[in-house]
């Protein structure tokens, strides 16, 4: 307590000895302070400056953190053929086209309600959409705004009537391959928007969930909060990035790039507010599913023929994911797939 502290003590018996000890204490304190100070000067600023240098473009893939492109660790790629040339790969000119003029993106009234319907019966797994998106939006290597995962449904049964005959017996293969185009669902109830501490990401009135690259602090909360892994941190702009439904195209009356390029016409884009649009008709006449409905995010990308979320469990009854773009080379699944020997 303040009052007590200041009482002047009358007892001065050990005064001289204490002077001595205080001097020593001060010396010691200075010494400790000095050592710590030097350690700080060496350790602290170097680390902090590195961390704070947000414009830094050269990254070493050491810890799998979000700005690192991990492709060059892929044993399939030869590190020496220029894949790891960061000056080429992380060229600021390669930013998605709207980054530099985000302010030109219109704030619209809810005149439209843009949705996408994906008819899995028609997807042939050609990955044209993946390529179209990357090229339209200048997506850095190792990142995708849309991608097509491949899953397998069914099993191989041993039966005497099977048409696959081997030395070990006859089998019937009741297997279907499901190609599942994935992208941001432009959820009506998007957790990624709720968690953003600076409200850099928002849902535009006509549907698309967007990130304002001028405001985003790159904290990664939304990336963690999206249940569909639809977001990433753009290694060039150092901000969160994701599918925009090609917002600058749809504002001009064009279709999103992936829809334009879809060879099987599996992707259909349109306005749900218009009852005569193709999407409205499809939704009215087909059972549709969304991904992870239990998350309560209310996705606005609808699937025809999706049998629940494709499982990653070791359950023979379940539909199994057999290939996914999302797999990190630095994961147990990849190690099992590639075999340890390849990961030298």
């Amino acid at each position: 307590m303040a009052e007590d502290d200041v009482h002047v003590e009358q007892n001065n018996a050990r005064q001289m000895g204490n002077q001595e000890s205080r001097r020593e204490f001060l010396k010691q304190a200075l010494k400790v302070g000095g050592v710590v100070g030097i350690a700080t000067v060496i350790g602290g600023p170097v680390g902090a400056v590195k961390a704070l240098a947000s414009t830094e473009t050269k990254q070493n893939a050491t810890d799998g953190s979000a700005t690192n492109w991990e492709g060059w660790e892929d044993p399939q790629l030869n590190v020496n053929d220029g894949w790891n040339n960061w000056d080429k790969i992380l060229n600021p000119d390669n930013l998605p086209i709207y980054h530099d003029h985000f302010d030109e993106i219109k704030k619209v009234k809810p005149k439209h309600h843009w949705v996408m319907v994906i008819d899995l019966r028609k997807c042939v797994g050609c990955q044209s959409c993946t390529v179209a998106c990357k090229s339209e939006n200048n997506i850095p290597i190792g990142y995708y705004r849309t991608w097509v995962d491949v899953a397998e449904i069914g099993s191989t049964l041993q039966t005497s009537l099977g048409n696959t005959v081997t030395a070990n017996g006859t089998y019937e293969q009741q297997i279907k391959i499901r190609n599942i185009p994935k992208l941001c669902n432009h959820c009506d109830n998007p957790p990624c928007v709720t968690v953003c501490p600076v409200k850099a990401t928002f849902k535009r009135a006509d549907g698309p969930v967007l990130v304002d690259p001028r405001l985003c602090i790159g904290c990664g909360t939304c990336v963690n909060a999206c249940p569909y892994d639809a977001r990433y941190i753009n290694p060039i702009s150092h901000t969160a990035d994701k599918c925009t439904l090609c917002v600058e195209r749809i504002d001009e009356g064009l279709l999103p790039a992936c829809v334009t390029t879809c060879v099987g016409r599996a992707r259909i884009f349109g306005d749900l507010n218009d009852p005569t649009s193709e999407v409205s008709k499809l939704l009215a006449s087909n059972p549709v599913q969304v991904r992870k409905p239990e998350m309560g995010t209310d996705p606005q990308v609808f699937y025809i023929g999706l049998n629940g979320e494709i499982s990653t469990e070791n359950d023979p009854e379940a539909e199994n994911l057999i290939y996914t773009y999302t797999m990190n080379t630095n994961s147990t699944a990849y190690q099992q797939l590639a075999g340890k020997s390849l990961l030298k």
Partner: protein
Amino acid sequence: MGLEQVYWTLPIVAYPFISGLIAGSFIVGSLSKIFGQKQYEPLAKLSLLVTLAFILFAPVGPLADSRQPSRWWELYTRAHIPEAPMGLFTIIWTTYVIVVIAEIYLAFRAPLHQLSEVTPGWKGRLYHWLTLGSTGMSEMRLRREHKWLVILAGFGIFLAFAFHGYIGFIFGAIKARPLWHNALMMPMFITSAILSGIALMIIVYSIVFRYFSFHRKVDSALVDGLMKIMIWVLLVDLFLDVVDILNSAPVAYTDQATASGFAEIFLHGPLTGAYWIGQLGLLVVALTLALFRGIRTSPLWASVASFAALISIWFMRYNTVIGGQLQPKVSQGVVLYSPALFGRGSMQIVFGLFMFILFVFSLLLMVFPWDDEATKHRLFHSTQLTNHGEQNRSTNKILEH
């Protein structure tokens, strides 16, 4: 979509760890003021300085981890209340910093003023400057200051809970991560915050009073008292851990995603050791040590037990932050992660962070009169001096040292 990976790295592990120390040390420092436990009085001033040193660096973790930290001011200017948990941080943290600085001012103003009168040179001017030129020493004034000190401490305890509770909320609110989406996150984070704060104060008190105080003496009764409080908090923490395991491990009690995530990561996965040995094992070790009276009353051994508790809390943060992200959201298998040594999100950053804190704490220790005995002695000593003018010069030298 990026490849499934750990987005929040080591600085985010350090962030709740440091926040926990803030909340805990503040509560320990308030024991004497709020809960009337007079025997903890020597801790009051010291723990305020510990709290300040840590709180100044609390936001560095998340800022170092974010990719555009230079835009931090957006955290203040954008409307993000009340939904964004991280946005709440800005408000609670700012309030907390103001409260802690106000507490420090109130607690140190009187001794600083008195010292400024007897200390010559720049040091005296520094003391005077730190009192903001306020010189009143009347009984009433001091009583009023003390009253405010108590009120602010009460408010600060509320903030300590809010501060740490909401960090639990940051993780608990993210439903995309099954291992985070857990109502227990908040109470677990609050309990472990208090635990780590007590453990830290035991260590800091033992070291600082043993080596840097006026009498160079550690009061073993005080350490014993803190250790006894720690036992109770340890028990609550262990209890919550057990409830958490029951909630997350058996498939029968939880959803498929949580159960398989827990199994793949903590039962037979990359963090099995970190969970069962690092987090739980060390907690049990600390508890066992704390049960012995001989250990509780020995500052050295009490510090060892506290250190075990601190390491366990660090593992708890690591298992929560990193562990939760090892479970892929849409991919297969388990993401593998080992912290980098240098660069973004590395051990170097965390080391630098703690060094900064230590540095600031040492500075605060040198400036503020946290040791009541030393202050008394200094004041008494200089009243003597004014009586013997001829000694003035030589003593001034000592004081200026």
